C-alpha cells in the first residue's frame, strides 16, 4: 500500500473528536442546564385566568346597587400584525398615529407572541362600531372583562370602589396577581372575599402562532371559576338617596341605624360623589380631581370625621351619673352661669328637664360628682380615680375606641383618660377644674358620626346595641357574622334610660325644647341637639334622634358642618329622614323646601 495510510487515524480522530464535542455539548444543554426546560414551558404553556363575575349588591329592599357591565379590552399580538389601514384604525378607535406607534412598540417589547392590552375598556358603543371591522386588523382582538356599575349613583362611600391591586397586596396575599381587581374601600373592601368569587385557571398549550392546541396535562390542573356571592346590604337606598338630596350644598353626614338589629339604613357623607366616576379607566382622571376638591368628597365624614359631641353628650353623663348613684332621676341643680355659660331657661328640676333644656351648669355639677367622689384626700388623685372610672364607662358606649363594624376605616374618636391628661398636664397637675368642659361634651372629647348614631340606637334600645353594619344577608347563607347579632350592653340599667328618653321627647315635643323643628305629626320623636364647637369657624350643628319612642325603628345622627345650633339644621334634616323612612312621605313640604334650598357651603366662618 502506501505510506499515507497512517492518515486514516488522523481522519478517524477528527471524526471522533467532533462527535465527542457534540456529545459533551448535548449533555450540557439537555442534562446539566435547566434554562431550556423553563423556556420550553414559556413557549407552549399559557395560563388563562378565568375571571369570575364579581358578586352583585342589593339594598335591603332588593334594589340593585352594584352590578357588572361588560367592557372590552382591545388586545394585540404584535407577531400576528399584518399590513393594515392604520388611518382607518386610528379613526375608529380615536387615537393618534403617534399613540398607535407608541402602544405598538410597548406591546412588541413585552412580547411578540403573547397578547398585551392595546386599549383598555372600550365602551360597548365603541366596540359595537368596530366589531364588524375587526377582521381588517389581524393581530388585534377583543377580550371581554367586567366593570362595576352603580345604577343608583348613591352611597358611594358605603359601597366603595375597586381598583387594580398594588404590589404590597400582591406580596402579602398570594391570591392576587398583577392586574387583578380588589375592593379598595367600603363594602367592596369589607366583603372582598365574598364578592370576588374564585378565580379559575386553565392551562393550555399553544403553538408558535399562539393558537390553542388543547389543554395541558389533560386539564387535570385546571380549576373552574366560581362567581362572586350576591350580597344584600342593609342600606335603604331610597332613604340614602333622600339623605344625599337633603345634604346637598351642605357638608356633614347622616347616619341612620335600625336599633333592634344594628343595621345601617343610610350613611350619607356630604359632599359625596357618583360612584360611577371611580370605575375602570375613568378612575385615573377622576380620582385626582376628587382628591383635589377642597370639600373633600372622597373623605367619608360619617366614619372618619371627628367632632366634639357637644350637648348630646349630656345624655351619657346623666346615664353614668345615675348608674353610679351620684344623682337620681329626681336630682335638680340650679343653673349657675358662673360655672359655665348657659342660655336662659327655667331651672332643671330633674334629669328629664335637664336634657330638655340642655342646661350646662347642671352637667357641670353632675360631672363634678362623677369625677370627685372623695375617695381619697388629694383632689388630684381623686380626680384620677373618678376620670378613670368615667372613661371606662363612656367607652362602653362605643366611643374612644374601635367601634366594631364592617365598614373599613372607621376612626376611633377620643375619650381622654388619666394617661391622656397626665401626658398633657403632668401627673398630679390636673383635677376636675381642669377638665370640666368634658361635662358638656366639649374639650378634648372627639366622636365620630357613626358612633353618635350608635348612641341614639343605644338609648332607643335602653342599654344595648348591635355593632352597626352594612351587611344584611349573603345570598345562600343563612347567617351573618356572629358579631352583628350579639348584643353589646353598655353597663347602664335600662330603667335609667326612661328619664333620658322622656327628656329627649320633650326636646322635640314640648314648648321650650331645643329641637321643635324635629317634630313629626303623629310620631313621637326623641331627640337631642348639640352644637359642636369648631375652632376653625362656625360651630357644627348636631342632632341625634330615634323614633317612634315606643318600639323605635330608626335611630339617626345628623351632622351639618359650620351651620351653628343643632336645632336649626340638623334637627329638621333628621326629622325629614325619619318621616321618610317611617311613613314613606313628607307631611311638611315647607320644612323640606327650606332644607333643600339651603346652601350652607359658604357660611361666613365665626371668628
Amino acid at each position, binding site marked *: 500500500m502506501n505510506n499515507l495510510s497512517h492518515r486514516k487515524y488522523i481522519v478517524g480522530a477528527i471524526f471522533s473528536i467532533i*462527535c465527542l464535542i457534540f456529545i459533551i455539548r448535548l449533555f450540557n444543554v439537555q442534562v446539566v442546564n435547566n434554562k*431550556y426546560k423553563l423556556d420550553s414551558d414559556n413557549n407552549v404553556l399559557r395560563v388563562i385566568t378565568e375571571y369570575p363575575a364579581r358578586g352583585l349588591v342589593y339594598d335591603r329592599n332588593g334594589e340593585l346597587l352594584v352590578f357588572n357591565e361588560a367592557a372590552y379590552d382591545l388586545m394585540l399580538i404584535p407577531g400576528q400584525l399584518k399590513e393594515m389601514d392604520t388611518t382607518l384604525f386610528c379613526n375608529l378607535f380615536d387615537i393618534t398615529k403617534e399613540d398607535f406607534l407608541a402602544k405598538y412598540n410597548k406591546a412588541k417589547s413585552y412580547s411578540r407572541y403573547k397578547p398585551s392590552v392595546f386599549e383598555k375598556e372600550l365602551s360597548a358603543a365603541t366596540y359595537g362600531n368596530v366589531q364588524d371591522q375587526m377582521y381588517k386588523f389581524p393581530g388585534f382582538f377583543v377580550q371581554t372583562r367586567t366593570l362595576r356599575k352603580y345604577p343608583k349613583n348613591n352611597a358611594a362611600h358605603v359601597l366603595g370602589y375597586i381598583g387594580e391591586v398594588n404590589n404590597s397586596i400582591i406580596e402579602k396575599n398570594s391570591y392576587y396577581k398583577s392586574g387583578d381587581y380588589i375592593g379598595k374601600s367600603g363594602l367592596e373592601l369589607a366583603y372582598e372575599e365574598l364578592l370576588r368569587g374564585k378565580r379559575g385557571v386553565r392551562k393550555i398549550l399553544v403553538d408558535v402562532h399562539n393558537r390553542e*392546541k388543547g389543554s395541558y396535562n389533560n386539564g387535570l390542573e385546571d380549576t373552574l371559576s366560581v362567581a362572586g356571592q350576591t350580597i344584600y346590604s342593609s342600606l335603604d337606598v331610597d332613604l340614602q338617596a333622600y339623605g344625599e338630596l337633603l345634604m346637598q350644598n351642605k357638608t356633614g353626614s347622616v347616619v341612620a341605624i335600625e336599633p333592634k338589629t344594628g343595621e345601617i339604613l343610610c350613611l350619607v357623607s356630604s359632599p359625596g360623589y357618583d360612584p360611577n366616576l371611580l370605575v375602570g379607566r375613568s378612575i385615573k382622571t377622576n380620582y385626582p380631581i376628587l382628591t383635589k376638591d377642597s370639600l373633600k368628597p372622597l373623605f367619608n365624614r360619617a366614619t372618619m370625621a371627628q367632632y366634639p359631641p357637644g350637648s348630646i353628650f349630656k345624655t351619657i353623663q346623666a346615664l353614668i351619673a345615675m348608674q353610679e348613684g351620684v344623682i337620681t332621676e329626681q336630682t335638680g341643680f340650679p343653673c349657675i352661669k358662673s360655672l359655665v355659660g348657659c342660655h336662659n331657661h327655667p331651672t332643671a328640676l330633674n334629669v328629664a328637664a335637664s336634657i330638655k333644656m340642655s342646661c350646662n351648669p347642671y352637667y357641670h355639677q353632675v360631672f363634678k360628682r362623677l369625677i370627685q367622689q372623695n375617695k381619697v384626700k388629694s383632689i388630684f388623685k381623686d380626680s384620677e380615680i373618678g376620670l378613670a372610672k368615667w372613661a371606662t364607662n363612656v367607652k362602653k358606649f362605643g366611643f374612644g375606641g374601635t367601634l366594631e363594624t364592617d365598614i373599613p376605616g372607621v376612626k376611633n374618636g377620643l375619650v381622654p383618660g388619666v394617661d391622656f391628661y397626665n401626658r398633657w398636664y403632668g401627673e398630679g397637675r390636673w383635677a376636675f377644674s381642669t377638665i370640666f368642659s368634658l361635662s358638656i361634651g366639649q374639650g378634648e372629647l372627639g366622636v365620630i358620626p357613626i358612633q353618635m348614631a350608635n348612641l341614639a340606637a343605644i338609648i332607643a334600645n335602653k342599654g344595648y346595641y348591635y355593632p352597626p353594619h352594612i351587611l344584611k344577608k349573603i345570598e345562600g347563607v343563612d347567617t351573618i357574622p356572629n358579631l352583628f347579632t350579639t348584643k353589646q350592653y353598655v353597663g347602664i340599667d335600662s330603667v335609667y334610660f326612661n328619664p333620658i328618653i322622656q327628656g329627649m321627647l320633650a326636646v322635640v315635643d314640648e314648648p321650650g325644647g331645643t329641637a321643635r323643628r324635629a317634630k313629626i305629626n303623629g310620631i313621637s320623636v326623641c331627640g337631642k341637639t348639640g352644637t359642636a364647637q369648631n375652632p376653625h369657624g362656625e360651630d357644627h350643628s348636631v342632632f341625634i334622634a330615634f323614633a317612634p319612642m315606643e318600639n323605635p325603628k330608626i335611630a339617626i345622627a345628623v351632622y351639618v358642618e359650620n351651620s351653628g345650633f343643632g336645632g336649626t339644621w340638623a334637627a329638621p334634616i333628621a326629622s325629614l329622614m325619619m318621616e321618610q323612612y317611617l311613613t314613606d312621605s313628607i307631611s311638611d313640604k315647607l320644612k323640606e323646601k327650606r332644607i333643600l334650598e339651603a346652601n350652607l357651603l359658604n357660611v361666613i366662618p365665626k371668628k
Partner: protein
Amino acid sequence: MRNRTNVFTNLDWVTILTYLVLVIIGWLSIYAAVYNEEHSKIFDLSQRYGNQLLWIGLSLLLALIILMIEGSFFTSFAYPIYGLIILMLIGVLLFGTEIKGAKSWFRIGSFAIQPAEFGKFATALALAKFLSVLGINMKDLKTKVTAIAIVILPIILILLQNDTGSMLVYFSFVLVLYREGLSGNVLLAGIYTAFLFITSLLMRIQTFTFFNKEIGGELLLIYILVALGAAAMYVTKKMKRLWIIIIAVLICSVGIVFSVDYVFNNVLEPHQSKRINVMLGVESDPQGAGYNVNQSLIAIGSGGFSGKGFLNGTQTKFNFVPEQSTDFIFCTIGEEWGFLGTFVLVSLYLFLFLRLIFLAERQRSTFSRIYGYCVASILFFHFLINIGMTIGLAPVIGIPLPFISYGGSSLWAFTILLFIFIRLDAERIYVLR
C-alpha cells in the same frame, strides 16, 4: 450469474443496516415533527411523512439498482456522469426555479429536484477517477490544480445559484485530498485561519485598557501575533531558514486580521454575518437572527435526559422550531428522546463514519478507497454543520442531516452516494487495483 450472487453475499450488511436504522429514525422523526391528530394515517401524501415514505421506497429501489450495476461502470463513466451533472448545474441556473432565495431546483410537477445534491457523488466519482490514475503524485502542482479544479467547478456553479450551504459541503473534499497526500499543513492552515478569523471577530468589538491607555481588540491581537512571531524567531535563531516561514505566517496572519472586517461586511451576506455573530455570542437577537438557534436549543434542552417521549414534543409539534422536518430535524429527536436519543444518534453516525474509513482502507482499488473517503467526508461534513447548527456550535447553514432530514433529493443523493461505495466494496476481491 455467479459473479452477481457473489456480489450480494459480499455486501457489507453492517453499513446497510446502519443506513436503514438512520432512515427509519428519520422517518419517525418527520412523523413526530409534523404529527397532528387530524392526520394520523401513515400513508398520506398530503403530509410530509407520507411523502418521505415514498422517497424511502424509491431510495431502496435506487439502492437495489445501483447494487446490480457493475462497479466498472462507475469507474468508466465517472467523467461523463460528472459532466452531466455539471451541465445540469448550468441548466438549473438558466431554467431552474427559485425556492427560498436559491435558484437551485428543477420543478417537475409538484416535485422539485436539486441538482446540487447529486453533484456531490458525481464530484466524488470524478475526483476518485482522477486521483486513482497510476503514478499520480499529490506533490505535483499540476495534480493539485486539477484536483482542486474538479472540486471548484461545481462550487462556483452552486455559489451562482446562491446556495451557500450546499457549496460549503464541497470543502469536505479537503479531507480526501489530505488522505491522498495533500500536506497536513493545508489542514493546519485552514484550522489556523478559522481560529484567527473567529478570534479577531471576538476581539474587534472590545477595547482593553493597559496603563490607562485604551487599545482596540484588533490592534491588541496584532501586537500579540507580532510578539509571538518574535518569540518564535528567538527560539529558532539557530535555524534561520525557518525565519522566512515565520515571517510569511506572520504577514498572512496580520493580513487575515485586517481582512476580517472586509470579508465580514463585503463578502458575506448581511444575514450570514449576523448568524455568525449570533453563534459567537457577539450579538444577541433571540427574536431575529438568533430565533432559530434559540428555539432549537430550547427544544433540544427541554428534552432532558430521557426526553418527553415519542409524539410528546411540544416545541417541535407546535412549530416553535422552524424547518423542523428538514434542517432542524435533530430538534425533534433531542426533544422527544432526550440525551439518550441524541447520544445514540451521534454514536450511530460516528460508527458509520469509522466503518466507512475501515471499508475504504480495505480496498485494493485506489478508486474505491478515494471514493470511500469522499462518502465519509461528505456525510461527516453534513453531520458536522447540521447538528453543530442546532446546538449552537456552528452558524445557521441550511443543509440536511444525511438520511434523516425530510426531502427526496437529499435522500436519493445520499443513497446513491453510499450505495455506489457499498457496491464497489462488495466486489473488492475481484478488483486488483
